[in-house]
């Protein structure tokens, strides 16, 4: 891994996004002896997956799958990784893509930093840890999280008190308070967009009142609560640290809803809600767990069985879209729903002490504004060809994972492999054409 990349470095492929899709593509391409540059916006690669607890339907540990991939990519001789770097713009001329990158300052010289964390231990300033969804706290200068790659400290300028203690304790003089943002342009033959997804905010549907209660949480926060190395090491509700005794999952809380502009299905929520409910049954054996759903979309291999297992475990499934969540006394929540399960008494109110809203997947990045890549009406990268699902509207630029639409990990990895294959084929044909051209024209 080399953090000092200049414009004279010409990779065969530039991969936008260092999540599971980008890493899988990068590894598949690098193993074919192609040079790959991975550009990641955050301080660590690993994307969304490294923040998950376990994955459905196998209940495998998420970081046990992601960390080896991260490590393999970081140590691969054909892969270069730029973290804290965003794509500003891209233009294509004569089949060459020129990608302008913005490297944000980390105020730490990565060539000098040895990841000893002495600065982190010495730092006095803390702020809510974004990796823990704000539940724990993190120092203003820190290695982003335990298994982050690269294992380099990053200073958060927004929260730093500029006391200078980190610079005094650093054994290698790596702290550089005067770092400036750096732009560089990379020329490459092909690009893979693997920019992934965001979740829309829990407050997006005002009827769910998430702004009025900290016990109405996004599913990513529940992942951290359930993670073995999570913020509390156990499942506690955020408002008062109470052990929840009745947890509700509200499905379709941020998708399949035109009133918030997300009419499509986010595809993964049914399955992760079932998974989280199963993990909760293990973590809180006495808690009641209810999933409010419109219809369970268990479409993948082994998913239906997973759903049936959850039913057999005693997890409640209530068919009906929750209309309103009202904060009530003791930090609890009251859910209003019309259910078709009970013909006699369809209009129901239920009390819970923790509510997880299944937020909708929205694209994390809009490439249409600054690059030749077109987006579909839902905001995700458009994939015009049915028979070439990883091809974008721009030749030589491919897409993988949730950047092209809501997708689970299994499909993302399969698509990342497919995108790598298409890039490989594209480069092969392009270079063969150049060779033929040279042979014909001398």
């Amino acid at each position, binding site marked *: 891994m080399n953090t000092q990349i200049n414009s004279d470095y010409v990779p065969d492929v530039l991969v936008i996004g260092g999540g599971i899709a980008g890493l899988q593509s990068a590894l598949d391409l690098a193993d074919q002896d192609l040079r790959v540059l991975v550009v990641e916006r955050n301080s660590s690669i690993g994307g969304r997956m490294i923040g998950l607890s376990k994955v459905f339907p196998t209940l495998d540990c998420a970081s046990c799958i992601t960390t080896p991939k991260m490590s393999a990519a970081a140590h691969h001789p054909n892969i270069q990784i730029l973290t804290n770097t965003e794509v500003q713009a891209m233009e294509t001329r004569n089949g060459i893509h020129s990608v302008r990158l913005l490297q944000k300052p980390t105020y730490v010289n990565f060539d000098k930093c040895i990841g000893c964390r002495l600065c982190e231990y010495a730092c006095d300033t803390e702020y809510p840890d974004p990796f823990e969804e704000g539940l724990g706290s993190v120092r203003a200068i820190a290695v982003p999280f335990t298994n982050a790659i690269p294992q380099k400290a990053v200073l958060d300028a927004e929260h730093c008190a500029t006391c200078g203690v980190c610079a005094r304790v650093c054994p290698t003089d790596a702290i550089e308070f005067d770092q400036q943002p750096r732009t560089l342009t990379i020329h490459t033959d092909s690009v893979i967009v693997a920019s992934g997804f965001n979740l829309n905010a829990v407050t997006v549907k005002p009827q769910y009142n998430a702004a009025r209660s900290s016990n109405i949480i996004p599913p990513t926060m529940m992942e951290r609560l359930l993670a073995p190395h999570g913020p509390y090491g156990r499942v506690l509700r955020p408002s008062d640290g109470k052990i929840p005794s009745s947890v509700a999952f509200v499905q379709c809380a941020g998708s399949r809803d035109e009133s918030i502009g997300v009419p499509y299905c986010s595809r993964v929520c049914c399955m992760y809600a079932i998974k989280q409910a199963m993990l909760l049954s293990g973590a809180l054996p006495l808690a009641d767990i209810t999933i409010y759903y419109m219809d369970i979309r268990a479409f993948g291999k082994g998913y239906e069985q997973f759903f049936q297992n959850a039913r057999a475990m005693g997890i409640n499934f209530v068919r009906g*879209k929750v209309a309103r969540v009202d904060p009530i006394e003791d930090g609890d929540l009251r859910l209003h729903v019309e259910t078709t399960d009970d013909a006699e008494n369809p209009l129901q109110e239920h009390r819970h002490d923790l509510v997880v809203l299944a937020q909708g997947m929205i694209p994390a990045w809009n490439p249409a504004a600054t690059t030749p890549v077109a987006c579909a009406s839902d905001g995700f990268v458009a994939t015009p060809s049915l028979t070439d699902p990883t091809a974008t509207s721009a030749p030589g630029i491919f897409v993988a994972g949730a950047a092209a639409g809501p997708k689970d990990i299994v499909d993302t990895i399969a698509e990342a492999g497919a995108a790598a294959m298409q890039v490989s084929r594209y480069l092969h044909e392009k270079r063969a054409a150049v060779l033929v051209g040279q042979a014909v024209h001398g």
Partner: protein
Amino acid sequence: MTHVVDRSLLRKIKRHGAGSKLDVDACFQCGNCTAVCPLAEDSGGFPRRLIRMAQLGMEKELLASEDIWRCYACGECTQTCPRQADPAEFMAATRSYAISRYDFTGLAALANRSVLGNLAVFALFSIVFGLLLASAQAPVSPQAPLFDFIPGWWIHAIGVALFVVVGISAALGMFAMFARFVMGQRRKGVPLRLGALPGAIASAVTDALMHRRFQRCDSGQATPPPPVEPWYLRAWVVHAAVMGGFLTMLLATTLDFLFKPIGSPVPPWYPMRILGLVGGLTCLYGLAIIFLRRIRAAQPPWRKSAFSDWFFPSLLAATVLTGLATEVSVYAPLGSVGHGIFFTHVVLAMDLVAMLPLTKFAHVLYRTLALTLFAWRHAPAREHVTVDAQI
């Protein structure tokens, strides 16, 4: 029981909706509208079940349900609807459709179908009443008192006849709804006790006068709590102003009719005059707020307005305004202009009464009846006490 799906019902109802696009077909029956509704009660399915009935063409069941009239159009369902199917507007359109179906003359169907139909019915009544009044008009000087211009006894004669005809028409319309309801309850096997009916009527009338349900609809228990409006702008207060003002004017007119010789001069501080003036101004205040909201169209339920949403309040406002102008012309003679205003006022007032069962005004009949039927349906069944004969 078999049922044949009839797609034409939804098409017909949609024709009564405001704006070009009432996309009720989009509804996927999630029940958010029902669960978010401050007025949904035990039975559930309100308004979801009504949309389902319309989608399937269950016209008999839809028109037998008093539920369409229990909605006061707060618009909260429309705000949260995940399919943007606009349930609130669907309810309004269904009410308009029901008005045209309950009326047996066919005039309501014509008036509620299109702008032209509505205006045609209005023009028809205006011409009839105009000609009737003009037939008794005496050639007088512009300074003559109003009741020399058109004889008071003639106006009253037409008025009484009109009230009788409209009363019969309204009674038939209400019976159409009542009969459907009773048949529907019988089909469902719900027992209805005749003895509970007077109580139900009493509770419905107090509810209507006190705006009890309307207040619940607008009680700010919505989530998120809407920016608290001053009391004089709350939807139910505005409605109460229009309704109260109208009833006050009706009372003043009736008292005049009963106790004051026609056309006899009275001073401006005569109690009935004051009563009428206060009622008129209150009514106009409410109507002004309604017009402003519909013009601004900032949020549901005022975002979309059908022609019928404009027509009834406009007719009412025009009647009240010409009435107030007539009052003025009694004390400050305006000559032949005053005669013209008076003539217009009488014609408009007769139009208003004649079109009661045909326009949005019909909610006075059907909503009150619906509240009665709802209370009746929920009246506690008589307890059957059996005593074991073991003495």
